[in-house]
């Protein structure tokens, strides 16, 4: 994992001092609210329904155990003793006091953490596959490129006041796309060209929100060293020509659509032709330096399915199910990738207490080289666990509620904080998630349904990624009452698609039954090998519509 050198430390210390200065002036009344607003947003600080909310950056989802412990301490000392994992691999505190934020940032800086650019109209945290470096089907580890983008985008002087927020995601797997790159402002796929050289396929103009779109490819192959100059060209075209007259038309996807992907690509190429050999062009040494931080941990020589694991699986049915559901294949024999699910029924998806954070730190130290990752599904991954220690780990995480064996199932719901916390929300989302989890409380039935992404957002901003859920739920406000619109057929994977709206929205109390009817149509129509999305794509939306609105 990346470790700060004296430059990173100095820049961050100066940033903390700067934000303290800004906060002091705001509290003294020398900085008007509208002037402080973008400054605090670029530092992750929202003023929310009940209190400020501080979104702490977790670059591409990676956390060390000392950072987890510091998050626990900060949430205990400055908040109500819990934190929330977001759908963009970050962490939020829901109740800090404005005047405490500079001190919180100073404490976070001690463990190389910050809240830089986690909000506001700037380049946000770059995200990637939570299995990066541990899975077998990636071309290279994507994280060094994310770190290179992180450094380039941090306090970029030209792009601090973009028309709107800007999100970049990187994926390096040819088979999967856990980073959902096609629904980002820029989606970068790491690829090889025909000559076997490493580079990037660049998507621009994907995104969720009010006008969901799958991002078109604007460059099939970008050579490795050209990454930053090309990003700079894309951002410059966007900064200069993106709409600023209407906040709902200000994302880059609207510009790409207006110019057409070809027209947009042409403008970028023209801009890039002037700067491709500028000092921003990467060097092999610079890439190698960052890669040197992402070397493999000290793996033992092991083999798959050790006796202890096989025995424990046959002896403990619940453990066996958990291994099947919540662990994934690792590139090294004898290791497994483990996902701790933060989706226990009755707990808001993604919420963790200070003690749970410390517990995650402890199991990360004991079982996974002291590192953990946050996923955009609001779970936590231990990427390097010995298979012969899985049973011990399972026993350790069960009491903390992280061993619910529902990963990627109907009840592993992605859900934004919604109207319970968020000032932007039109409707609550957490109680909807809970009522659906309660309806589907039979794990065997849930397993039988297979992989289903159920995503819930409390408003159009789509933090719960509802457009790309196989089943998406969007909270809407109708004359002051909360209703829920359902869409089907979305996907954030390699076959990315935007879900189609089923029809008129429903009152909250009807939602569990609506989901049940949708599931029943799937169960009655599926073939043996089909998952929900396959069946939907084969039979279309009509049978679902007929059942739900019958």
């Amino acid at each position, binding site marked *: 994992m990346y470790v700060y*050198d004296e*430059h990173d430390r*100095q*820049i961050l210390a*100066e*940033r903390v*001092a*700067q934000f303290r*200065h*800004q906060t002091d002036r705001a509290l003294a009344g*020398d*900085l008007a609210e509208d*002037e402080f607003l*973008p*400054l605090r947003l670029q530092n992750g600080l929202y003023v929310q329904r009940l209190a400020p909310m501080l979104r702490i950056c977790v670059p591409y989802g990676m956390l060390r155990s000392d950072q987890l412990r510091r998050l626990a301490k900060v949430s205990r000392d400055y908040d109500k003793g819990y934190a929330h994992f977001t759908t963009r691999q970050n962490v939020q505190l829901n109740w800090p006091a404005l005047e405490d934020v500079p001190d919180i940032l100073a404490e976070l800086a001690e463990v190389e953490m910050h809240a830089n650019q986690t909000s506001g*109209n700037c380049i946000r945290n770059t995200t990637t596959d939570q299995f990066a470096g541990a899975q077998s089907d990636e071309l290279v580890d994507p994280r060094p490129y994310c770190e*290179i983008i992180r*450094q*380039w985008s*941090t*306090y*970029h*002087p*030209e*792009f*601090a*006041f*973009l028309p709107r927020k800007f999100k970049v995601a990187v994926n390096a797997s040819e088979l999967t796309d856990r980073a959902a790159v096609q629904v980002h402002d820029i989606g970068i796929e790491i690829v090889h060209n025909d000559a076997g050289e490493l580079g990037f396929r660049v998507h621009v103009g994907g995104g969720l929100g009010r006008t969901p779109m799958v991002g078109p490819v604007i460059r099939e192959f970008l050579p490795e060293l050209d990454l930053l100059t090309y990003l700079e060209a894309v951002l*410059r075209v966007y*900064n*200069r020509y993106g709409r*600023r007259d209407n906040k709902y038309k200000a994302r880059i996807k609207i510009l790409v659509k207006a110019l057409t992907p070809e027209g947009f690509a042409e403008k970028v190429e023209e801009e890039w032709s*002037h*700067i491709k050999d*500028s*000092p*921003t062009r*990467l*060097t092999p*040494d*610079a890439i190698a*330096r*960052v890669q040197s931080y992402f070397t493999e941990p000290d793996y033992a020589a092991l083999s798959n399915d050790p006796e202890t694991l096989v025995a424990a699986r046959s002896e403990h049915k619940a453990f066996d199910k958990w291994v099947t559901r919540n662990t994934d294949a690792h590139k090294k024999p004898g290791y497994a990738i483990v996902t701790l699910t933060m989706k226990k029924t009755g707990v808001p998806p993604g919420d963790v207490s200070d003690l749970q954070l410390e517990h995650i730190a402890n199991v990360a130290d004991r079982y996974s080289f002291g590192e953990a990752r946050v996923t955009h599904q609001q779970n936590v991954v231990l990427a390097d666990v010995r298979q012969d220690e899985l049973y011990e780990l399972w026993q350790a995480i069960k009491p903390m509620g992280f061993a619910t064996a529902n990963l990627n199932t109907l009840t592993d719901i992605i859900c934004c904080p919604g109207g319970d916390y968020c000032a932007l929300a039109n409707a609550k989302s957490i109680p909807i998630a809970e009522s659906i989890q309660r309806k589907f409380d039979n794990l065997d039935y849930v397993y039988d349904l297979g992989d289903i992404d159920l995503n819930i957002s409390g408003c159009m901003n789509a933090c719960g990624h509802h457009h790309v859920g196989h089943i998406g739920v969007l909270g809407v406000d109708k004359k002051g009452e909360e209703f829920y619109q359902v869409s089907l057929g979305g996907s954030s994977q390699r076959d990315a698609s935007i879900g189609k709206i089923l029809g008129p929205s429903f009152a909250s109390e009807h939602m569990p039954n609506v989901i049940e009817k949708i599931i029943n149509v799937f169960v009655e129509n599926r073939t043996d090998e089909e998952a929900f999305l396959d069946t939907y794509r084969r039979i279309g939306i009509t049978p679902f519509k007929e059942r739900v609105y019958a």
Partner: protein
Amino acid sequence: MPEVITQDGQIKADQWTLVERPAEGETIELPTGPAIIPADIWYANKNQFAGRDDVGVWLESHDEPGILADSVNDLPIIAVNFPKFTDGRGYSSARLLRERYGYKNELRAIGDVLLDQLQFMKRCGFDSYALRADKDIQLAAHCLNFFSQAYQAATDTNEPLFRRRVS
């Protein structure tokens, strides 16, 4: 006498008078003393103005700085307007003027120029700043220098941190 801030944080008296765009159909009237006029008007009357050290131009945030490409160094001053501080187009305009068109003379930020944006303006090539009148000009030097170094190359440096680290 109004004041502007220089890139090293000094406060100096300002000689220039900003001339607004004349209403449709009216011709521009120059004040006595040095004047900054709309760039397209200067360009349309280039024969009359080029080479004068008392006439500069200002660009609106949506103006193409490229209209001045072949004559930037005929100008003693170019100002870029920030109609609202959240409109970030002026940062790109400044870099283009400096890095693409090779502009060497004074580049000034005007309009909604506040303290916390000075650092970005400086890095993008602005070397004078007409701070909004209600802001404390004494804080400018501090705000220009929050950071002692930066990650990226920009107008102010050809040495991004990734190049300094491995050199």
